[in-house]
């Protein structure tokens, strides 16, 4: 007997179908992770130079529609093609069918996270038997950032660049003590203002800019240049060389453990590096327990705090199901996206998607 269709599974669970447009404004996707995804997007322009794209995924289109409708809570499902430039293979991977759900504005994060995964698991059917499941929680990184002793603007930088591993690594090196040296006039000015009080330093920089004949072109104001220059002066003067923090962060990010052991391993790491992470670890433990109750085999699934970091909008629970035919399903929590897309306030959200064609391919490949 054929597996129930994803649509049936979602409807039975009380989700309502939504059908966002295939054609989306390209801006929205480019703005999220910048022109970095430009190469995977299929873009089209209209006669007036407006740039559109074929939707590369459903989450952003669905959220946009909910915001337009003034909806602050919804349980929706979708099914349809998504478009991503394939990596030069000839088997038509530019257009793929995807089905999934979004739980927006839910009040019980733990329950919603688990339900999302459970639904994807159901859609994967017997393909789950040979699949590899990975879990993560990007909220843990936030907790680690709060727990270490870094200036606020450094926390902001690390948080903002977490999804881009190379840039993040560079930032860590600066925290580890590799402060770039400054030469020339800027270096001299730095040396000079280092001994001044904050107000005097500000005045000195301001004067230098206004009286030196340097023209303030470009959209930045003298005030903002001054403010940032002072911040750099503080960075250079302060003893930012804290390799212990770098070690703590690197160890944490390299961590991988079976789901059922993850809380213990995390607690041990927190103790070793003197980090107060109890509430965050507790949440991981509770969710892990709920997932294992759903399916005992998940106790052996890998839990990795760095997992899912390259998706720029995930903020918490993240998961992926890998099968022989490739990624069968994936998803995660993205609590910041609705507000970023224009909702009046922060709205919690979690979702998951499955690739039905790959699930079927895996199923039929089994003896």
């Amino acid at each position, binding site marked *: 007997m054929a597996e129930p269709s994803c649509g049936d599974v979602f409807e039975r669970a009380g989700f309502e179908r939504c059908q966002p447009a295939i054609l989306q404004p390209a801006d929205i996707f480019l703005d999220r992770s*910048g022109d970095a995804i430009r190469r995977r997007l299929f873009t089209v322009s209209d006669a007036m130079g407006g740039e559109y794209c074929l939707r590369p995924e459903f989450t952003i289109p669905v959220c946009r529609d909910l915001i337009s409708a003034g909806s602050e809570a919804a349980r929706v499902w979708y099914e349809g093609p998504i478009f991503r430039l394939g990596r030069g293979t000839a088997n038509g991977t530019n257009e793929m069918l995807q089905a999934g759900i979004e739980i927006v504005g839910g009040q019980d994060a733990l329950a919603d996270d688990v339900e999302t995964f459970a639904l994807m698991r159901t859609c994967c059917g017997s393909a789950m038997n040979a699949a590899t499941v990975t879990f993560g929680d990007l909220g843990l990184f936030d907790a680690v950032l709060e727990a270490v002793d870094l200036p606020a603007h450094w926390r902001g930088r690390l948080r903002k660049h977490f999804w881009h591993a190379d840039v993040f690594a560079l930032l860590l090196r600066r925290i580890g003590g590799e402060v*770039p040296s400054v030469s020339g006039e800027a270096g001299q000015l730095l040396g000079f203002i280092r001994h001044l009080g904050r107000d005097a330093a500000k005045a000195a920089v301001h004067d230098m800019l206004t009286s030196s004949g*340097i023209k303030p072109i470009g959209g930045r104001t003298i005030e903002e240049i001054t403010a940032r220059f002072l911040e750099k002066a503080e960075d250079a003067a302060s003893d930012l060389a804290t390799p212990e923090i770098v070690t703590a962060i690197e160890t944490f990010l390299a961590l991988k453990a079976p789901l059922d052991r993850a809380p213990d391993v995390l607690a041990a790491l927190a103790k070793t590096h003197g980090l107060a992470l109890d509430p965050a670890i507790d949440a991981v433990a509770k969710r892990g327990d709920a997932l294992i109750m759903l399916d005992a085999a998940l106790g052996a699934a890998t839990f990795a705090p760095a997992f899912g970091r390259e998706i720029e909008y995930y903020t918490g629970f993240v998961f992926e199901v890998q099968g022989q035919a490739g990624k069968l399903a994936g998803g995660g929590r993205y609590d910041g996206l609705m507000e970023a897309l224009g909702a009046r306030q922060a709205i919690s959200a979690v979702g998951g998607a499955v690739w039905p064609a790959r699930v079927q391919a895996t199923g039929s490949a089994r003896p």
Partner: protein
Amino acid sequence: MTGFVFALPSKGRLQDAAFALLDKAELAVDRSKGGRGYTGTIAALPDVNVLLLSASEIAAGLAAGELHLGITGEDVAREAAVDFDHSVALLRALGFGWADVVIAVPESWIDVWNLADLRDVSLDFLARHKRRLRVATKYANLAHQFFTEHGLSEYRIVHSLGATEAAPSSGAADLVIDITSSGATLAANDLKTIEGGTILKSEAQLAASLKATWGANDLGQLAAILNALEPGSAESTIKDFTARLKVSPL
């Protein structure tokens, strides 16, 4: 156009240097219409069709497979080809036409010394002004690739048709990506370079199209040109080139 097509720069110092190079190699170009036309002939190679085009047109022609061979800047060649490695083969660096493609920011940004600063500023700017930094440039593709590689995502490209370096003064952009050789024009426009901000160190190249149709005769013309420029150099270059032709789907 049937037959082997060899494109040369139609004006400026690039043209002078290219013609001088070919002269020296006994491949002097006779330009039609009293030296002002857009076609030419090379006495030693009667089967070669010479076209005179702008450096950008040569780059675009190579990328599209409309020309076999051309002399043009590496900067425009890379900019014109979306999938450069499968479209254009750089056969010989020619030792002239030096220009660096660089990021240049206003001199007044005394807090911006390197790429890391630019990254920070791009985030700070967005938060403060609710819009992204605008980058004026002719090199949109090079800019996107470079910024992606270096984790800079909060920017918008403003396509520049003319004097790119005047864009910040006129308010059309906040910073620029442009070619510079002496830095004099940058300084004159109150701009400065930043550490790590060199996107490409470009020079004139003898470049061949991986998208054009190459018959035995065409390869023969290429060999003749290569050997005229540097005796004995054709064999290994042609060998590598044909190998690359095989793996670059048309």
